[in-house]
């Protein structure tokens, strides 16, 4: 009855073993972090309290994990049922991305042993954007687990439970659209309170949540295109480029929206001149903007949109654009004041690599064991 099937095949392939090696290096440094403290393995300091563990593992990685969100929007809100085959792999990638984002937040926590304090209502500070992020991401991880549960239940043949879950799944799907809208916009709002430390070109104040949300959706659709394209190459699946080009078309609207808001804000806030007069920050801004504009040009052309290679280029550019937008705002042009500098240490980077390696390993195992990818005869 399922339109999805497990890929099967060997688990211990060469890429898998390569990822295992990276993962083990990450585990080694992670062990240090949990025995000697954060200072031992990271370059975090008094001015740069947030390094790549927050900015990559949480802020960027959860945006990478917005595939499930973006597709849920398209399929269930705008009723574009034709994209249904892409949903389950996207939900799996989202689940893994968010779970590891949550884990990233945990090992970055200075007082990890009392992480539960944020879940105690008596402690809640409703002025805090971080409270919204923390609670909302935690809830969304549960929702994603429920959204992905049918794959596991099918595999285990638990038909009764599957039927019951399917009956209420619409509610979880609705939450699966609402929650990322909330916390992905909040990830942008985190920048507001940082005030002057955020470079003026990125400190858009009230517009932070909207820009963060638009860029998260752009990254969400891009990651679906990217994953589907790599599945074609990696697993020899039939190309779904007709579906992907449709997603590309949706993304055009988001890109135009993002760029309009971005530039209108700079003009209204009287910062347009800074685009060219900010030295290194100007370079980063222009690079970032180019990464948003190039895919827009590709996707505007119906002919290019139909070509898998062009679509993949556009998707990668958009993923880099969204990543750079976040890195620029939170780290690269972030300036806490004189006397502080930050570049991640090797152990810090290896911990992040280890986490990403684990995420990819888990994805590979799960698509092989569980009915995740769409079976072609139904496509």
């Amino acid at each position: 009855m399922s339109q999805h099937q497990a890929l099967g095949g060997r688990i211990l392939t060469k890429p898998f073993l390569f990822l295992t090696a990276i993962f083990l290096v990450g585990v080694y440094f992670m062990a240090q972090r949990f025995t000697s403290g954060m200072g031992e393995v990271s370059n975090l300091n008094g001015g740069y309290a947030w390094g790549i563990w927050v900015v990559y593992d949480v802020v960027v990685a959860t945006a990478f994990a917005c595939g499930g969100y973006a597709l849920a929007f398209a399929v269930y809100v705008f009723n574009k049922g034709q994209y249904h085959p892409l949903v389950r792999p996207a939900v799996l990638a989202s689940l893994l991305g968010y779970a590891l984002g949550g884990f990233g937040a945990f090992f970055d926590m200075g007082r990890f042993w009392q992480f539960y304090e944020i879940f105690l209502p008596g402690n809640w500070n409703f002025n805090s954007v971080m409270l919204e992020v923390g609670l909302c991401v935690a809830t969304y991880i549960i929702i994603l687990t429920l959204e992905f549960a049918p794959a596991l239940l099918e595999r285990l043949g638990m038909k009764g439970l599957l039927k019951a879950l399917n009956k209420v799944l619409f509610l979880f799907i609705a939450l699966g659209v609402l929650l990322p809208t909330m916390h992905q916009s909040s990830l942008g709002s985190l920048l507001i309170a940082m005030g002057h430390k955020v470079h003026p070109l990125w400190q858009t104040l009230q517009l932070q949540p909207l820009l963060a949300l638009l860029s998260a959706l752009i990254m969400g659709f891009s990651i679906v295109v990217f994953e589907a394209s790599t599945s074609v190459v990696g697993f020899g699946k039939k190309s779904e480029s007709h579906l992907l080009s449709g997603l590309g078309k949706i993304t055009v609207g988001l890109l135009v929206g993002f760029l309009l808001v971005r530039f209108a804000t700079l003009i209204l806030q009287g910062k347009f001149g800074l685009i060219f007069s900010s030295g290194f920050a100007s370079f980063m801004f222009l690079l970032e903007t180019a990464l948003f504009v190039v895919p827009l040009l590709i996707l505007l052309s119906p002919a290019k949109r139909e070509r898998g290679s062009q679509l993949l280029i556009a998707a990668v550019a958009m993923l880099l654009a969204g990543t750079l937008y976040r890195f620029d705002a939170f780290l690269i042009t972030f300036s806490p004041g004189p006397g502080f500098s930050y570049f991640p240490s090797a152990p810090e980077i290896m911990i992040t690599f280890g986490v990403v390696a684990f995420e990819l390993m888990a994805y590979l195992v799960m698509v092989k064991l569980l009915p995740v990818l769409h079976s072609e005869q139904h496509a």
Partner: protein
Amino acid sequence: MKRRDFLKATLGGTAAVACSGVAEARPNLEPADNAVGMLFDSTLCIGCKACVAKCKEVNEMPPVIDGDATTWDSARDLSGDTLNVIKVYRDGEAEVKDREENGFCFEKRSCMHCVDPGCVSVCPCTAMRRDEKTGIVSHHPDVCIGCRNCMVGCPYNVPQFQYNELFGQIQKCQMCNQAGVGRIDNGQMTGCAEVCPTGATLFGPRDALLAEAKRRTELKPGETYNYPRGDVSKPYSHHEKRVPEYLQHVWGEKEAGGTNVMHLSAVSFDKLGMPPLGERSAASIAEGVQHSLYNFMALPAIALAGLTYVVKRNTDDDDKGGDA
């Protein structure tokens, strides 16, 4: 109503409420009724660092030794072991005190006890609190998860995490009023103000300190002025000194909503490493956005109702059933 119209109405309504809310962001917080604070007059500071030593004593923190300077605490900046530090400004030959070019001066770094504190606003667990009466900003590690948002949310980079300890915590000046110290509640002044030999660090009620600061900026350079030591409202002694060329600017009167610890100087504050702040606190803007989106969870509730309706209809249409 057609589904498309319903969707539009829901999204439009949500957006409209969100936008109208943003316009009603809250103003800066006002100083606490009985706000206490300190006035640091850079032109009086001789860099003896008695305040640094006293601060370590009160907070039971070890000295920080930089290089071979083992004679005294040589902490260069705030850290998990240093809540108060005296920094030096030097330009060119550093010939004359309190002169910007070819001169030098001293600057104190410690918690400014903001009137509208960013650290309090951003903390998810209410581990940072502004005292209702005194305005003192305190930290409560028992509920802190160590997310360090207070550090990035502080315009002055004051809260410091003890990175070198596995079970570290955030450290900051709590104006000597933390549990077990309680100097202010006991009618005493802060340790740093008590030991300052020149009155460069003065303790007292915020209004009295602000009045004293303004009085000083209105003095004629070259005149003599009788400078108080200790608590501005009941100084334990005075000393006469020539009035320097004060900047006509009391740092902390208005910056980002003002601070309870204010600074006076003859050298411009940006040279002393003070951040570029306007009068509006970033916290008030962030809270305005957050509350307009999440007040009573009304918007999320409306959005969820709309989404549930739409998703339910779209999954029911789907002949394949609702499997995701």
